[in-house]
């Protein structure tokens, strides 16, 4: 059976990894002509989305296309395999790449950023790595793309090349590389030594290897902390540090691609390496789940104290990521279902918020929340979208986040963890306060320094289109969560 453009499904998976790389090459070649360069970015992102979408039908029908790329070590191949969870992540990342590209054009030009060609180039490479993460067939492949994603986002974090950017870059690289090498790689090799394979298999590979409860618990902790991109405390500092990057980077990479690659990996390890039944049988997640719970609360509390909008969103992201980690570690159908859906819900919600933050920065040159009083009157679209995004993150209707939080709550009850349910509730309340404060201030307070015209207008058009689209998507995902639900049902049903 062939799909889009006559590509067989395994080739479509490969194409998903290669198309952004090819797009990056085009960007480089067209570097001198900004309009064509941006057209190339938009074109490749659209193409990528179509290719990923073409995999949806077959995967829902039960196909698991697989393509071996190389076999560096005997018995340790690098291969791609498309399964529902990965496809969900790929769909989210590729669809948001289109929107972010649209947004970037307005932002980068409106903000007169330098080195835009380099920016678009590494952006495309990062997406390629994210696709690789999504379609990794085993832990080894995942590790490779995971590290590639760290390295190719580094030039984006340090884009401004200032001393501050360099320092942040050091924190970024330092934490992500050290956790992945010291913990994650150790865990992968340990897994290999236990199971003789590192492939992702429904039901996991560790059950029946004779791994004791203690070993399983240590191994799981190594994965949870070793996947530093999931930003479970105390390995979260890289995420606020990465906020020195231009806003589109914060939006797509540090609210979607990079961090979601992290929580996605945690989910994938829980489902396909451990197998959730194995986790429940051994009680492997009993302790480490509280690290996620603590992160949810603590990051929310820190978010409260931040006046800088991007910093507040960063801590909000840390908190929300741990929702997904928590869902994975609950290790039951509802937890994993909710965690998987929250990947998509949080992505659309948070990217709207970041788009809003960037739009405010470009149009009004404001970065601190205390300066945004009354801005809602001059920038109604931006703050309206911001409001919708915030609703989705908090988890109230009519935004998509309501579904994932609902399932996560069910998951805690299923696991008999009322304490964790309380954590989710308290954190939602905290989120409600610290996120809604922003549009409330913007709409209902009057601007400082009187009513006179400030010369502030709405953000550039492409940016407005982008953030309206993502806000709408959040609402649509509330009304039509079926695709996400179906994909995740396949994950937990297997």
């Amino acid at each position, binding site marked *: 059976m062939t799909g889009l453009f006559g590509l067989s499904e395994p080739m479509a998976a490969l194409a998903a990894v290669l198309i952004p790389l090819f797009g990056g090459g085009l960007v480089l070649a067209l570097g001198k002509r900004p309009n064509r360069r941006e057209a190339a970015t938009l074109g490749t992102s659209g193409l990528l989305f179509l290719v990923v979408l073409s995999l949806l039908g077959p995967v829902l029908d039960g196909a698991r296309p697989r393509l071996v790329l190389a*076999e*560096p*070590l005997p018995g340790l191949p*690098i291969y791609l395999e498309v399964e529902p969870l990965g496809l969900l992540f790929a769909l989210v990342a590729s669809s948001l790449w289109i929107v972010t590209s649209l947004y970037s054009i307005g932002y980068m030009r409106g903000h007169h950023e330098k080195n835009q060609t380099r920016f678009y180039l590494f952006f495309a490479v990062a997406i390629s790595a994210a696709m690789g993460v999504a379609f990794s067939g085993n832990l080894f492949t995942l590790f490779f793309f995971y590290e590639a994603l760290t390295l190719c986002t580094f030039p984006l974090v340090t884009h401004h090349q200032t001393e501050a950017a*360099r320092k942040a870059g050091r924190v970024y690289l330092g934490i992500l590389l050290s956790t992945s090498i*010291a913990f994650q*790689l150790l865990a992968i*090799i340990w897994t290999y030594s236990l199971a003789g394979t590192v492939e992702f298999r429904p039901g996991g590979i560790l059950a029946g290897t004779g791994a004791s409860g203690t070993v399983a618990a240590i191994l799981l902790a190594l994965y949870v902390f070793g996947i530093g991109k999931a930003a479970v405390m105390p390995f979260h500092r890289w995420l606020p540090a990465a906020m020195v990057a231009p806003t589109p980077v914060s939006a797509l990479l540090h609210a979607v691609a990079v961090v979601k690659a992290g929580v996605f990996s945690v989910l994938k390890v829980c489902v396909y390496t451990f197998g959730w039944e194995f986790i429940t049988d051994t009680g492997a997640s009993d302790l480490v789940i509280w690290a996620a719970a603590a992160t949810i609360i603590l990051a929310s509390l820190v978010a409260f104290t931040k006046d800088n909008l991007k910093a507040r969103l960063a801590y909000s992201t840390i908190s929300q990521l741990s929702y997904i980690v928590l869902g994975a570690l609950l290790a039951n159908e509802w937890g994993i279902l909710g965690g998987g859906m929250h990947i998509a819900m949080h992505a659309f919600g948070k990217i709207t918020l970041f788009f809003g933050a960037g739009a405010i920065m470009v149009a009004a040159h404001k970065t601190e929340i205390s300066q945004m009083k009354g801005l809602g009157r001059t920038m109604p679209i931006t703050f309206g979208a911001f409001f919708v995004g915030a609703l989705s993150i908090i988890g109230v209707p009519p935004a998509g986040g309501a579904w994932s939080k609902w399932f996560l709550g069910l998951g805690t009850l299923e696991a008999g963890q009322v304490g964790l349910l309380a954590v989710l509730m308290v954190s939602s309340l905290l989120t409600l306060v610290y996120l809604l404060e922003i549009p409330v201030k913007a709409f209902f307070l009057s601007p400082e320094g009187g009513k006179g015209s400030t010369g502030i207008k709405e953000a550039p058009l492409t940016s407005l289109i982008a953030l309206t689209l993502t806000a709408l998507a959040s609402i649509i995902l509330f009304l039509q969560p079926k695709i996400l639900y179906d994909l995740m049902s396949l994950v937990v049903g297997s």
Partner: protein
Amino acid sequence: MINHLPILQVIVPLMAAPVAALVRKRGVAWFITVLATWASLAIAVLLLLDVRDGGTIRYALGGWAAPWGIEYRVDTVSAYVLVIVAGIGAIVTPYALLSVRREIGVKQAPLFYSALLLCLCGLLGITITGDVFNLFVFLEISSISAYALIAMGPDRRALHAAYKYLIMGSIGATFIVIGIGMMYMMTGTLNMADLARLLPSVGGRTVTVAFAFLAVGISLKLALFPLHQWLPDAYAYAPSTVTAFLASTATKVAFYVLLRVVFSVFGVVFAFETMSLHWALLPLAIVAVLFASLTAVYQGNVKRLLAYSSVAQIGYMILGVSLATVTGLTAGLLHLFNHAVIKGALFLAMGAVMYRVGSVRIEAMQGLAKRMPWTMAAFVAGGFSLIGVPLTVGFVSKWYLVLGAIENDMWLVAFFVLVGSLLAVAYIWKVAEAAYFKDYIGDLDVREAPLGLLVPMWALVVANFYFGVDANLTVGVARQAAELLLGVGP
């Protein structure tokens, strides 16, 4: 002809050396050197292909059968090391042409090539011989020529470094010859195979002492912590070509000697059960990894930085040995090859910087990536491999090393190996950050290195990735060699 390959392996560079010294013209001397090294490589490859089926080539020198005559013995282990040594020689010598022209005087150049060939001859001889005293002789040939090569460094501190190496190296050699003497005293033979047969039956304190002398002497030669003091200066001040050559070969051959003595002569049972060698090697190896990596982070001279990194990498190899399992030994042997291509590439990149900038201090490399993009890219690529990024050879070594440690239930050891990787990130990053994120402040006429330097450098970089993407060949050979050494062949 084909039957005489083992002796040709040694004779070709040995004979080429005086010719290179006598021709007096540096271009001609260089050409002879290149021819000789490539011929050596061809011979080494032929030998490896010959023994790959699991056979052993035995060659009696002058037709005198062992144990009366000297026997050359080629099995998978030695053929593997021969290919590495000759291969590095073949890549480094083309590079030498330009680098030597810049760093070494016209009159000295032919002598330089001659010493280089002698050093190669010594290293190949150590690897191929099956006779312990002959091994000692070749060890001295390679060491003495190495002292001379290091002393030719462009900096006057090279003399001091060479002197230090001379003293330490001689102490090591003395220990080794004392150990050999004691073994001869007890068994009356110098042939390795014979020794292996006779030693278990004699036993006693003399054999124990002989083992200790040999272990310490060889550890000095391979710069195992804390006997590594000679290495950083020697590598930092030697001519660029010599640093690249020695870093990729000399300590590797010393490592090979350790393997031969421990596994082939004394045997696993004696070394690890009677003598508990692993309890001596394992802590030292871990301290080497951590301490030397940490020291590397604080170096301002990049060649010195890489030298400390080498001490750490030797720690990894020794760690593999101390596990005394097939996986551990495979890891050690793999790293022998992998580290040779990693460090070779890195030192050649530094040689190119030396060629254009005249300094290898970190300050001199600020913003250099804009001026010498290919050279610095090679450094970063080599650095990735050193760190152990997937799809590089460094990853392959780390994988097997950690796997070996986990198989022995040594979790902490596995963790320390990975911490060593992190320290490598730190010191490689220091250089990369200076080259890529600082503004260029040096001379305006600094350009990219000439092709004569870039091509050998990138050949090694490509090898780093080629054998990282498809490690089946190296893993296969290393595993076969490890099984051979442990006597658990398939």
